[in-house]
């Protein structure tokens, strides 16, 4: 068993409450992602679990054991850092074996583990190289190999893909995910990239200002966001939030209980000529993305983005009608709006 349970942890620095009463559970052999904007406390939570940062209050449990005050090396975790934390003076092999050497593992075991790990991440040809002689992706693999070799079943990763270019990032995403499944690792992964979160996670924990905004599976967060923040953070481009009145549409009856803002994902909006039924809007701009086109629509103060697949015949300044299925409507409270949303 290797599950992580966080109970009411708080982290305060003078004048900052970086983590505010956060509780969650990471099930064994699952992939959990801590997602949130910059400065919301993701790294701080991860570092507290690793033992690199002390906890102001609350407790951390691994396998049912309270490890809040245990030494980092005895928590049974490994960690992949954002800049990989490779030792620049050691070659790949020595970097990978660093932990086993510290723990004075028998040479034979070192050799076997090294062999395994190196094959898994495809580094066999680079064992004698120094980190400076590796590409970003290869360095990333060394860091992963170090985790594999450590034999720990829990792995914490702090934005490990953020230094890679888009293509490599997608590749490493798959690689990390398959590694996790292959080894049955319990992974807690920090990112501010919602695509990463959606593609990799079994569970997403969405944070905002040191608190959990919403948690659940990627499907949960996408299909039923509990707040405007959650709605706009997940999905690209973000969900449109509009006042139904501005568009001159009558909303469903359940809009009566104080929820007066309408949320529509760009991909549910259909755009057409007078033959379809719905409010009229003007095309303010078009972003052609190849397989799809983003249509910017305006009407008075209201702005919408619709995502249309395939080619699109629309022109700027054209007046169109839009339509969406009633089942795709989300409703939010007016008072949830804060500046910047």
């Amino acid at each position, binding site marked *: 068993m290797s599950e992580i349970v966080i109970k009411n942890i708080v982290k305060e620095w003078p004048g900052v409450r970086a983590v505010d009463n956060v509780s969650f559970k990471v099930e064994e052999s699952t992939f959990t992602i801590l997602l949130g904007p910059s400065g919301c406390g993701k790294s701080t939570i991860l570092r507290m679990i690793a*033992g690199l940062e002390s906890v102001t209050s609350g407790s951390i449990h691994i396998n049912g054991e309270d490890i809040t005050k245990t030494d*980092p*090396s005895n928590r049974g975790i490994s960690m992949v850092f954002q800049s990989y934390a490779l030792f*620049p003076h050691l070659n790949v092999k020595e970097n990978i074996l660093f932990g086993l050497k510290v*723990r004075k593992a028998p040479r034979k075991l070192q050799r076997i583990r090294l062999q395994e790990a190196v094959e898994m991440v495809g580094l066999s040809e680079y064992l004698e190289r120094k980190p400076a002689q590796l590409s970003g992706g290869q360095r990333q693999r060394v860091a992963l190999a170090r985790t594999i070799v450590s034999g720990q079943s829990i792995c914490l990763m702090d934005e490990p893909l953020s230094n890679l270019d888009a293509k490599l990032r997608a590749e490493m995403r798959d690689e990390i995910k398959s590694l996790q499944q292959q080894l049955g690792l319990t992974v807690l992964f920090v990112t501010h990239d919602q695509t990463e979160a959606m593609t990799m996670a079994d569970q997403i924990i969405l944070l905002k200002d040191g608190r959990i905004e919403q948690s659940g599976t990627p499907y949960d967060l996408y299909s039923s966001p509990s707040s405007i923040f959650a709605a706009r953070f997940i999905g690209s481009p973000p969900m449109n939030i509009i006042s139904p009145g501005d568009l001159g549409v009558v909303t469903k009856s359940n809009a009566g209980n104080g929820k007066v803002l309408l949320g529509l994902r760009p991909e549910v909006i259909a755009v057409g000529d007078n033959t379809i039924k719905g409010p009229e809007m003007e095309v303010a701009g078009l972003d052609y993305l190849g397989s799809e086109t983003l249509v910017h629509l305006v009407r008075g103060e209201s702005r919408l983005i619709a995502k249309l697949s395939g080619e699109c015949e629309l022109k700027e300044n054209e007046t169109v009608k839009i339509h969406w299925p009633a089942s795709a409507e989300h409703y939010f409270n007016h008072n949830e709006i804060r500046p910047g949303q």
Partner: protein
Amino acid sequence: MHQIFSRQSIYGWLLLLPAAILLFAFTYYPMAGTFFDSIFNEGSGSLSSRYNGPLNYQMLMIDPVFKTVLINNAIFALGTIPVSIGLALMMALIVDQHFLGRSLVRMAFFTPTVLPMIAVANIWLFFYTPDIGLIDSLLAFFGIEGPNWLGDPDTVLSAIIVMAIWKEAGFFMIFYLAALQTISPELKEAAKLEGAGKLYYFRRVLFPLLMPTTLFISINAVINSFKLVDHLFILTKGGPDNASNLLLYHIYETAFSYFDQGYAAALTVVLLLILASFAIVQFFFFDRRIHYR
């Protein structure tokens, strides 16, 4: 040949020219001049200078003072360099940590460096003064009669070594501190997670990563140990009985007290050779095992 005189390379040479002229005028020309001086007799009055071959160098062999200053300088170098580098590293490690009053401690460690050597010598003269000096007064408090630190051939060189360490360590600390701050804190955290203790981390990670700095500092330290003689003017004038005399001070005395320019030039050539060979050994020998980023 055409490469040297191609249009491009002429530009290159022209760009180098100002630096080359300065280097030549103030470094290589005097070096060559020194060498010529060392093999010619000083012309004085009606006598013109004339070639006297290796005479000055033969004199080196039989000059007992030369032997003494060489040995003294070796002791001085061996006494100051490892200790001041070790101390510098220790101080840097201390002030690299976060604690209250860190800037104050940093400044305290660095202060001796900013003081001119002459001022330092004056301070230490007060420490070392027999009977009424700080050290002897302290010893007297415990009923011990302190020696005449600077007047006794047995203690004078050690006394000067201690002072030089005090002066140098803070300077070297700055280099270590700068190097430490370029090392990512993630390395320490990664090592910690793997179970590496402080000592292991220092031995296997920090120290190797500081090697380039150590090399740089040690070259500087060697040069300094031959170059720093200001304090001798204040404290001992090389005495008693040459017990604290160092090579450069001996050169100064030979040239400006005994007015033997030719012999002083020969001594200078020896000094240059010593320094050059140290630099070469350090660069070519250590360079290979040192990790450079």
